[in-house]
């Protein structure tokens, strides 16, 4: 962290991958054509819950052109990032509509489709559980009868003999005693449906196992090393014999975190040795067959004193995890240790419980549970404020976190933790909050957001810096640029630290696990911060190498020298050497040479993280950092139809340091629009009896188009430096979609006195709420 003026960080440098993307030079996994590549089709369960009595592949294998068939019997291996509750193909039972049962690979897509149609599966249907209440009911059918025997990380607590795949308890202060002292108590329930990421590029993986037994996988993924790690674990292969390459990725939003189609591609590749096998899902399957976002049922009880201070807070989050919880269990955990959002609650009783159902598989989705819990918590805060007749902004300021305040896990924040109060004030000011303006059917609302990176304590990034002969710097990273601009940001940090002209940096960001430095995952809004730190460290190392050589070349102390625009300069003598004279070693006039090619590797791992207490979740530092923010919304409602227009969204986030102004604005606007989509139009609908998806297409699953974008989007930033952030920066990628739905709901309340607690807020729900209100208060 430094107050030094910056040359590149904080400026509008051109996006380094812009040209290749707009010219079509960027190649995505689906663009890659491998010699004699086979085409796969996955046979997926039509049942939401059934016992698999038998899978017969003989007829499929006989179709001309078929080169591989595989099912659960062939690969009875478990896979999962945190909880190994899934197998490559269903073995004894299927747990959601779309669960992979078998797969075939053939010379043509047509042959593969025909073979897939000839796979015979005997199912014995089982009772279907779609809601968390049914999953939690005593005597409920077990989705995973073997849950107690699954392998998992130590900080996940699945309960064998139940449908609970994880349960995080947060206990702070004395909730019961505090509740008795409260002047007002508000209890409300909220819900969030399952939604889908809808990336432009769907999931796709291409794999080959060569004659020597090496497995290679090209895949559209957010985490090449985690894919390698989990593939190795699943198929019991040495990591060194698994290679994962990630070409350009056309959007992930969390749906390509962890491991997805790769094991199926690998299984078929093992059956068709030497051949490349391509597995993909079509747009319809993308909605339900791979991963979705969890559903949430939340019940909150809030007790306040007369001064508007929350004394007692109870939260119950029941997560609808779907058929498997491999990744989703960590959403449950993150929602637990963040259960109180951006507020200080001295007495708190929180439970975050993941429940298996027979819905599609819940996984990571931008925000990782935070939009869902903020939907509940932020509306609740407004309702409590209204209950005691206090302005919702004032109420938030009175209860929010800040330096010296204690989070739900007992972590005391410091002056580097970020300032939610400044974000709230900025948004309120921009909205003209408290100006008394009130027009019929127009309203304003504000909601807060907070999120920490939800990751294992040892989630690390590393980078490699090396030079070309002409002094060009190459920066090898393994974080994925999924559109957020990571490559550009990495180039900015490198150019900054080595004082290079910006066009003298090339970021190599299409990682290949054989060649690239390790990175855990591109998730958790962690890349600018983690990779950024690693780049700064490696650059510092390179700088010392350059100064050391120049010191000998100039016969001057290294401490006197400095880097200046691609040269090493001795300010006292005015002598300078361009990098190209140094980066391959420096040669004196008599021919003797020192140094050597300049290169450095560096790592970043968050330090000082302490596990949560298993009974209370108390920990002085459970997570690496927090990012706070707030959004304000203005809406206009048509009360007759219930249709409404979000006219304006204003956001303010404490990002520590704005690394790239237009990239961060783009992140913010994009998050707002994605937040708007989930808030008002998105929901994966299932048939209530069969669990089959009813809107698995873009015809009937809608996301916002350009015509739906609010007329005004505004992004503001506070820069309270993060102590361990690169030049003070902290993550913000996910946070931008967290508060939007709650702010819209509050604005609708402000506009016409109705409250929708079940996301999404559709016109029909608004209309129904208005009708209900009319009945309650008949006009005289």
């Amino acid at each position: 962290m430094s107050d030094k003026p910056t040359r590149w960080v904080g400026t509008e440098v051109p996006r380094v991958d812009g040209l290749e993307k707009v010219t079509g030079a960027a190649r995505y996994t689906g663009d890659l054509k491998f010699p004699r590549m086979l085409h796969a089709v996955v046979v997926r369960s039509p049942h939401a819950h059934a016992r698999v009595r038998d899978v017969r592949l003989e007829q499929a294998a006989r179709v001309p052109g078929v080169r591989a068939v595989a099912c659960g019997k062939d690969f009875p291996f478990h896979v999962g990032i945190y909880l190994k509750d899934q197998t490559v193909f269903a073995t004894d039972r299927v747990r959601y509509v779309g669960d992979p049962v078998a797969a075939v690979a053939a010379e043509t897509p047509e042959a593969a489709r025909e073979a897939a149609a000839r796979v015979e599966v005997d199912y014995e249907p089982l009772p279907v559980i779609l809601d968390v209440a049914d999953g939690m009911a005593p005597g409920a059918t077990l989705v995973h009868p073997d849950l107690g025997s699954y392998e998992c990380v130590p900080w996940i607590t699945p309960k064998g003999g139940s449908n609970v795949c994880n349960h995080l308890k947060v206990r702070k202060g004395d909730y019961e005693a505090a509740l008795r002292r409260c002047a007002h108590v508000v209890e409300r329930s909220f819900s969030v449906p399952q939604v889908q990421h809808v990336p432009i590029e769907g999931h796709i993986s291409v794999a080959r196992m060569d004659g020597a037994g090496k497995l290679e996988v090209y895949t559209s993924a957010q985490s090449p090393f985690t894919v390698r790690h989990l593939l190795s674990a699943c198929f019991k292969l040495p990591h060194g014999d698994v290679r994962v390459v990630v070409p350009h990725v056309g959007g992930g939003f969390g749906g390509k975190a962890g491991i997805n189609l790769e094991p199926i591609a690998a299984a078929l590749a093992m059956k068709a040795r030497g051949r490349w096998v391509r597995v993909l899902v079509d747009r319809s399957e993308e909605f339900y067959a791979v991963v979705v976002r969890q559903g949430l049922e939340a019940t909150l009880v809030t007790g306040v004193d007369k001064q508007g201070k929350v004394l007692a807070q109870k939260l119950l989050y029941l997560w609808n995890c779907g058929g498997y919880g491999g990744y989703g269990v960590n959403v449950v955990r993150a929602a637990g240790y963040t259960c109180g959002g951006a507020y200080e609650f001295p007495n708190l009783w929180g439970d975050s419980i993941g429940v298996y159902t027979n819905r599609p598989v819940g996984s990571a989705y931008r925000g990782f549970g935070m939009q869902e819990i903020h939907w509940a918590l932020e509306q609740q805060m407004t309702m409590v404020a209204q209950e005691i007749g206090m302005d919702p902004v004032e109420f938030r300021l009175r209860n929010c976190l800040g330096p010296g305040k204690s989070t739900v896990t007992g972590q005391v924040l410091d002056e580097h933790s970020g300032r939610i109060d400044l974000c709230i004030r900025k948004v309120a000011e921009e909205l003209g909050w408290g100006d008394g303006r009130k027009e019929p059917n127009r309203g304003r609302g504000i909601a807060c957001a907070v999120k920490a990176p939800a990751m294992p304590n040892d989630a690390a990034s590393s980078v490699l810096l090396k030079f070309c002969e002409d002094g060009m710097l190459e920066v090898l990273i393994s974080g994925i640029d999924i559109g957020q601009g990571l490559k550009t940001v990495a180039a900015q940090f490198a150019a900054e630290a080595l004082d290079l002209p910006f066009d003298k940096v090339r970021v190599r960001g299409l990682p290949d696990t054989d060649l690239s430095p390790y990175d855990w995952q591109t998730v958790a809004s962690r890349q600018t911060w983690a990779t950024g730190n690693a780049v700064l460290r490696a650059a510092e190392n390179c700088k010392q190498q350059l100064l050391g050589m120049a010191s000998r070349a100039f016969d001057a102390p290294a401490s006197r020298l400095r880097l200046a625009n691609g040269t090493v300069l001795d300010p006292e003598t005015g002598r300078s050497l361009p990098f190209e004279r140094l980066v391959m070693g420096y040669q004196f006039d008599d021919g003797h040479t020192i140094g050597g090619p300049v290169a450095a590797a560096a790592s970043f791992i968050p330090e000082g993280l302490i596990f949560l207490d298993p009974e209370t979740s108390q920990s002085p530092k459970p997570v690496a950092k927090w990012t706070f923010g707030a959004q304000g919304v203005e809406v206009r409602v048509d009360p007759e139809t219930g249709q409404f227009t979000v006219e304006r969204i204003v956001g303010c986030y404490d990002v520590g340091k704005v690394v790239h102004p237009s990239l961060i604005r783009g992140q913010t606007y994009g998050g707002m629009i994605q937040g708007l989509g989930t808030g008002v139009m998105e929901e994966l609908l299932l048939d209530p009896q069969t669990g089959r998806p009813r809107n698995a297409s873009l015809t009937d699953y809608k996301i916002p188009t350009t015509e739906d974008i609010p007329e005004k989007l505004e992004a503001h930033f506070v820069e309270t430096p993060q102590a361990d952030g690169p030049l003070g920066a902290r993550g913000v990628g996910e946070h931008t979609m967290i508060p939007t739905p709650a702010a819209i709901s509050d604005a609708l309340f402000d506009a016409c006195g109705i409250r929708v607690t079940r996301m999404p807020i559709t016109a029909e729900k608004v209309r129904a709420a208005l009708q209900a209100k009319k009945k309650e208060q008949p006009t005289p």
Partner: protein
Amino acid sequence: MNVRPLEFRTARSTAEATALWAEVPDAYYLAGGTDLLIQMRLGRRSPARLIDLKRIPGLSAIEVRGDGALSIGACVPLGVIAAHPEVRARYPLLAECCLAVGSYPVRNRATMAGNVCNASPAADTAAALLALEAAVEASGPNGDVVLPLAGFFQGPGKTVLPAGALVTALVLPAKAAGCRGSFHRLSRRRGVDLATLGVLVGRHAAGGAGAHRVVLTAVAPTPLRVPAAEALLDRQGAAAAAQAAEAARAACKPIDDVRGTAQYRREMVGVLVARAAAALG
């Protein structure tokens, strides 16, 4: 899953097209293809042969006939129809309904004949075509037929078009020119969405008995004209907006689906008819 080979044929005349259709089972005519190709991908239709109509001379023309009627060829894309000066000047409601369909790229490909033959209860162009009392001209194995659009739709995906017949043109009568009003539709989002429901209310410049048109979409098995509501408006004009709305609510037969509930649709029919009627002034 359809894995049989698909044959693509290009017809140069309607006679050739109908002959190609008759040669094999499961032959389909192809105009814009924006519905058919999606249905094929979803496995709902499995053609053995597609017969492209776009090379047939005359099918891509818009022309004013001797009697003043406007003929719109079956292969004219919606975007072209909506921008056509004759359409804009004489049948502005049709232009409005064409523009309600899909997106720019879809409208540059999709045809009105296709929209009509697809026979969706939510077909936006059907609202204007019913209001304007258009006729469907078709050629089939048993010769040419002219079918009034009233009665053309029989249910979702069902029409009275004889088997093997292909629509050659949609014809707007001269007397329908100058019918003005508005088309209101509700959808889940602003850009590119099927109508949850649609309401068209129009009035012929001459006024008097038979001057008004009230057409509803996506609230019955077919796009629906509501004569009772029209008669109320004929007698009392915009003053009868509320009664016309009530008549339309009574006439519609909506269902629950992923786009909305029957109850919401019925209520919104009332709201939109009242609005559109009031807007007539």
